[in-house]
């Protein structure tokens, strides 16, 4: 039977488009979800929790890591290793925390020599960190070689007052995360059990057994390792580069916090 031209053309068009769609469905599927809000005001927060929250903001909502590295010279922005100590001497008459806060909310006030003035104010859209988040981020930066002494009152009350007209429809995340939820992420969305055993959760031994990870590693290491497995190195005896580098994009801030909370129970 001879097919009409219209049918043949339609078949060709559908096959071509089907191939493109098929390929697009085959590659990694990454959604971009709106960031969640962190609220620490009115709560009892220890410096360690503050630094931990700041570390998370540094790598996720704050998008700092896009340009700033810690322990590595960046092409777009300075290395932040030791910035907590350097900040005290950066501007005469200004304390380390005051300098860091100024750098975050008014980044063009002082430009480090050799770098372009491209940093956006972190409390303004599109990053739009709120007051709590700027506080946590400042604490994290102070912790890079300095002493953490920043208080919520040091952050101007006007910080984060904007926010993009629509107002954020975000869920509040309490610190620390929910370990119970974190366990479901470990076994589900995170897919950690595909390579790691953790106490009663069986896992293929592609990567190290995490049953006592909180006993043998610091919270800081665990948090960094999830977001930047390559940068944190590979445990001896295991193949390098296998652990996905994409958890910073695939997990939401809450899922990440919950997962870390669960990992910290593995002692």
């Amino acid at each position, binding site marked *: 039977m001879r097919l009409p031209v219209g049918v043949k053309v339609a078949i060709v068009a559908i096959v071509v488009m089907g191939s*493109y769609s098929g390929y697009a469905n085959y590659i990694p599927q990454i959604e971009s979800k709106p960031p969640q809000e962190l609220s620490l005001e009115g709560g009892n927060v220890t410096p360690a929790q503050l630094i931990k929250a700041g570390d998370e903001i540094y790598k996720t909502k704050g998008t700092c890591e896009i340009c700033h590295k810690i322990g590595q010279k960046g*092409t777009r922005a300075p290395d932040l290793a030791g910035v907590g100590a350097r900040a005290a001497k950066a501007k005469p008459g200004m304390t380390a925390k005051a300098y860091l806060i100024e750098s975050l909310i008014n980044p063009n006030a002082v430009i480090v020599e050799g770098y372009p003035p491209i940093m956006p104010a972190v409390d303004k859209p599109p990053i739009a960190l709120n007051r709590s988040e700027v506080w946590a981020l400042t604490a994290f930066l102070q912790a890079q070689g300095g002493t953490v002494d920043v208080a919520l009152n040091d952050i101007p009350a006007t910080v984060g007052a904007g926010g993009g007209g629509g107002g954020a429809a975000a869920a509040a995340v309490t610190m620390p995360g929910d370990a119970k939820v974190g366990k479901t992420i470990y076994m589900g969305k995170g897919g950690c059990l595909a390579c790691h055993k953790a106490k009663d959760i069986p896992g293929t031994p592609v990567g190290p057994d995490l049953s006592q990870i909180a006993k043998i590693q610091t919270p800081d290491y665990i948090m960094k390792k999830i977001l930047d497995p390559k940068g944190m190195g590979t445990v001896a005896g295991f193949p390098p580069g296998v652990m996905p580098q994409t958890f910073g994009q695939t997990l939401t801030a809450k899922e990440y916090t919950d997962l870390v909370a669960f990992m910290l129970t593995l002692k």
Partner: protein
Amino acid sequence: MVGAGLVLAGVALLVTALPAFAQEAAREPAYRNFPWIGSRLAVWAVAQLHLNFAAFILGVPIFAVIIEIIGWRTRDPRYDWLSHEFVKLTFAAFSTTALLGALLLFLFVGYYPKFWTYMTSIFFPTYWVYALLFFAETFTVYLWYYGWDWLSGSRKWIHVSLGVLSNLFGTAILFLANSWVTFMVSPAGVDESGALKGGVWAAINNYAWMPINIHRLIANIVFGGTIAAAYAAFRFLGARTDEERARYDWMGYIGNFVALSAFIVLPFAGYYLGREIYAFNQTMGITMMGGFMSWLWIIQAILIGVLFIGSNYYLWLGMERIPGSERYRKYVPPMLIILAIGFMVWATPRSMVVTLDEARAMGGTHHPILGFLGVMSAKNTAVNLMILTTFLSFVLYRRANRVSQKPWVKTGMAVQWAVIALAAVIVTFYGVYGYFVESLVRIGFSVYQVVAVLAAIVIVMAIDIPMFKGARSTGVIRWGTIAPRSQYVLIILAVTFTWLMGLMGFARSGIRQHWHVYGVLRDTSAEAVTPALGYAANVISVVTLVFFALVMFIFWLGGLSEKGKAGAHGHVAPAIAGGSEDHG
């Protein structure tokens, strides 16, 4: 008196009712939900369809008027007929474009009222200009189309002027609509609260506006060319006589030639757009190229690879119908090799999709050798060499049945080859050198590569045109004898470019992430998530399918009036050489 009293009463009623209206407006929700598919998908589908039709009706007249001018100056009726055919296609799609535009507006007003109120607060003065331009363009195109016979002969210059004028109005409409879209990506001229600081011009002239204007203008020509070529291919495949086949073979060739000529410079316009997005906001630029969207560019590379290889393949098949082209066949295999390697390099991702075992065997998700091909240095080199090769294909096609009679032909050809070789060396040198410098320096190298390729194109053509002026012909092109598979290539090119437009629309919209207007108006709807590529591709495919179904229906409707009439609108289709034995 009674009338004046009524007016006064009406005004009084309006004034007293205004606070009530204001309260009502304040209670209006920020979003409404479109039934079944959701508001976002409804807006996405209609916007993409509207854009496809708008690109077609704005792109085709640009080259239709150029073809008409060629026919007018050379007194060759074939070009006048072809130009009329192209405008006929545009004309049939005109009202559908307007209907889809109106539908899109209703969706915004109804389902995204807060967003639309904000956009109106910025761009209200431009709405009037847009409406006036639309009127002006509509009437000019009507006059251009219906006045084809009336304004012929000594009045042809008036007709051509109408074509030029309709293009100017069309371009102005495009630029104005682009200002709204680009403001959403790179807002300017507003304060922290999002309010307009000065005049509306500052909001129009934002970072992405001019790059998008240029990119879309060129892309519309490519798109119009591919759709017109696909239409011709469809008619070719269904043709019953040799003459008809010859006519639509020629039309398909012209459509593809137009598309290819514009397509060669399109990547450069893309670079300019990318650079301006980085200039506006580094974070946005990095998110676009290296963040959650990084895989989108691999898909784009595959589509562009298909377009390059398809266009070249069509030219090579076309050379088969040109007596004298045999002497250039030897160049086809090396050109195919360069295109295939370029395609593979461009489509190689930095991080592979691999199984766990494969990842362990490779020592990571980056392949130890192929991983080096996943970076911009390799990709820029590949695309520039592909552009250069495509240009070479075109040059060979152009001179296929011509032998230059100029005494300096040997020198001219030697210089041409040297220029092409030098451009290839410059492109490759900076591609390799790029691996040894920092990213900021590497980005600058792409400019040298682009300049080398563009300079080569200009120099080679500057020599070629005088060199083949008055050349000896080795035979007449046998239009209509091209292999039927070439026509499927034209259809694949049209489908691929339409799909690519959908993908780029997703990229432009997706880089705003959870913002309606980046950094100014946040998307707080339940659908603020930017979907993954698989979902986006499915939407693009379905909308593209609907677009082609509508196009076929509209073209069929447009052709109904001419059924049974030879030479409708007084336009007798001219015979094309090779179309029948008489003209062979």
